[in-house]
């Protein structure tokens, strides 16, 4: 009964994965059927491309920055949602929207909010006399601002996911231990940092590992907001692979770029297996 599922997955995940490896060391173009082994040529030409180095760096900046923000914000929000209060269900619904709505659609909402001419943020900034009407920030048009924008929109999208995972952790901490510590005279922050956060570590682990995968391999927010621009300054590995391999029809080089996702994925998968095993032991 297990076999059909395994075959399906093998055919559409296993086979393409092997093909991706073959493409990355071969000479494949759209429209031709031939295949010639070229060794590491594709990787060499990828590495020589200055756009690639930028994308590699951006991928790490994008992932690390959004994970840090998401973890801090997610913990604060989870703590605020932990105990029952009137209207909790409604608030939970509101804060979940960004994760539940299709990410391409949510990003489109931001594209309008960050519009070069009609941005509501700029309207407010002008009214508050923080910027001059003719010198408003181009949120998606200047390299640094565009990078900040895509990171923040991505955090907006993943924050609810991080929050609900952390919330599951916070509600599962047995109440008697922190309470006993309080009786013994431990203050709020001492309890938080010496008891509750260590108890939360396994679940923080889960949130971070999934967060890294969902962020490092995603291109949707960037594709919608900037298409990797201006001048490829917000390009990340997945979007560069898309532009090179699919739109640019250079399958081999695109596959080679995608391959750079693999080491980090393997590390994360290994860490997950390790923490799963540890959970089994305890």
């Amino acid at each position, binding site marked *: *009964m*297990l076999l*059909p*599922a*395994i075959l*399906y*997955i093998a055919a*559409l*995940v296993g086979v*393409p*994965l092997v*093909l*991706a490896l073959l*493409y990355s060391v071969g000479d494949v173009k759209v429209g031709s059927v031939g295949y010639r082994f070229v060794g590491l040529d594709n990787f060499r030409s990828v590495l020589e491309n200055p756009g690639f180095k930028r994308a590699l760096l951006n991928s790490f900046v994008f992932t690390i920055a959004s994970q840090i923000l998401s973890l801090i*914000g997610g913990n*604060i*929000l989870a703590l*605020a949602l932990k105990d029952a209060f009137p209207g909790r269900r409604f*608030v939970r*619904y509101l804060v979940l*929207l*960004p994760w*539940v709505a*299709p*990410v*391409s*659609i*949510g990003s*489109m*909402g931001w594209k*309008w*909010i960050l519009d070069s001419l009609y941005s509501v943020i700029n*309207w407010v900034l002008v009214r508050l006399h923080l910027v001059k009407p003719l010198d408003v920030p181009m949120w998606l048009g200047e390299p640094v601002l565009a990078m900040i924008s895509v990171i923040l929109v991505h955090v*907006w999208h993943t*924050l*609810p996911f991080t929050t*609900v*995972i952390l919330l599951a952790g916070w509600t599962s901490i047995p109440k008697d231990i922190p309470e006993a510590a309080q009786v013994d005279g431990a203050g709020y922050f001492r309890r938080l940092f010496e008891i509750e956060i260590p108890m939360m570590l*396994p*679940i923080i*682990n*889960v949130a971070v590992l*999934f967060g890294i995968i969902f962020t490092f391999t*995603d291109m*949707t927010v960037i*594709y*919608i907001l900037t298409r990797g621009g201006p001048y490829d300054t917000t390009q990340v*590995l*997945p979007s560069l*692979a*898309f532009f090179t*391999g699919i739109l640019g029809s250079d*399958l081999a080089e695109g596959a080679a770029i*995608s391959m750079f996702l*693999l080491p980090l994925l393997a590390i994360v*998968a290994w860490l997950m*297996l390790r923490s*799963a095993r540890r*959970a*089994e032991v305890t």
Partner: protein
Amino acid sequence: MRIGRRGRAALSRVVHVGVLATFSVLLAFPFYWMLITTFKRTPDLYDLKNNPFIFNQPPTLEHLRLLFNETLFLRWFWNTTFAGAAVVVITLLFAVPAAYALARLTGDWGEKLGIGIFLTYLVPPTLLFIPLSRVVALLGLQDSLWSIIVVYPSFTIPFSTWLLQGFFKAIPRELEDAAMVDGLTRFQTFLKLVIPISVSGILTVVIFTFTLVTQEFVYALTFISSASNQTVGVGVPIYLVRGDVYYWGSLMAACLIASLPIAVVYNLFLDRFIAGFTVGAVK
């Protein structure tokens, strides 16, 4: 200055409400913005002198009319529904038996295999889309809705198998043994006992498979090249833009309609979804 016990309680209340209000506004704002944009008249939208937070002219249904009558929006909606339903059927056909087998496999093997299957869920589309675009072409499915119907189960089956396995494991084995003693075969037991008990689990899987289909972007963008075969997730952001002209009113209307219903349903099943991700980390 010392703050009394009551002062401290009041302060923590203020902080609590403040945190909740800030996050709610930040996270929900784009949806409010979609809502207000949907009903604003075009001249109102594009006048920089107007306060964008309020209606400076009476609201209008013009953008909705345009969206439903002059764009492919309804077509995309139908495509998404159809693809979603088809993927749900395929997913159930493969994942239900697999999950049951995993739940009943004894010893270390079942566990390892289960985790292995779940990990394939994490292999991202952006690693596979280039070779898959060729596989899709080979199958003659390029530019067809069927391309995503065939490919999406490759990530919905692993996730669903993992979730369902948890449900099946919770069914006491003695119950099944008793049914088999009463003369049912294993298959009959599965059909008449296990499936009815697990209805809520199966429903969860149906909802999540469907939402995963509506949220997917990369594969649909890669495999489907004509506007009329697209899903909502790609159609709205890519094909509702004509040349360089953004019809923001209709665009935001489409975004609003595509987001809200799914959010309501999803919210009902959230706790089970989280349980799937946190197995082992939360006791």
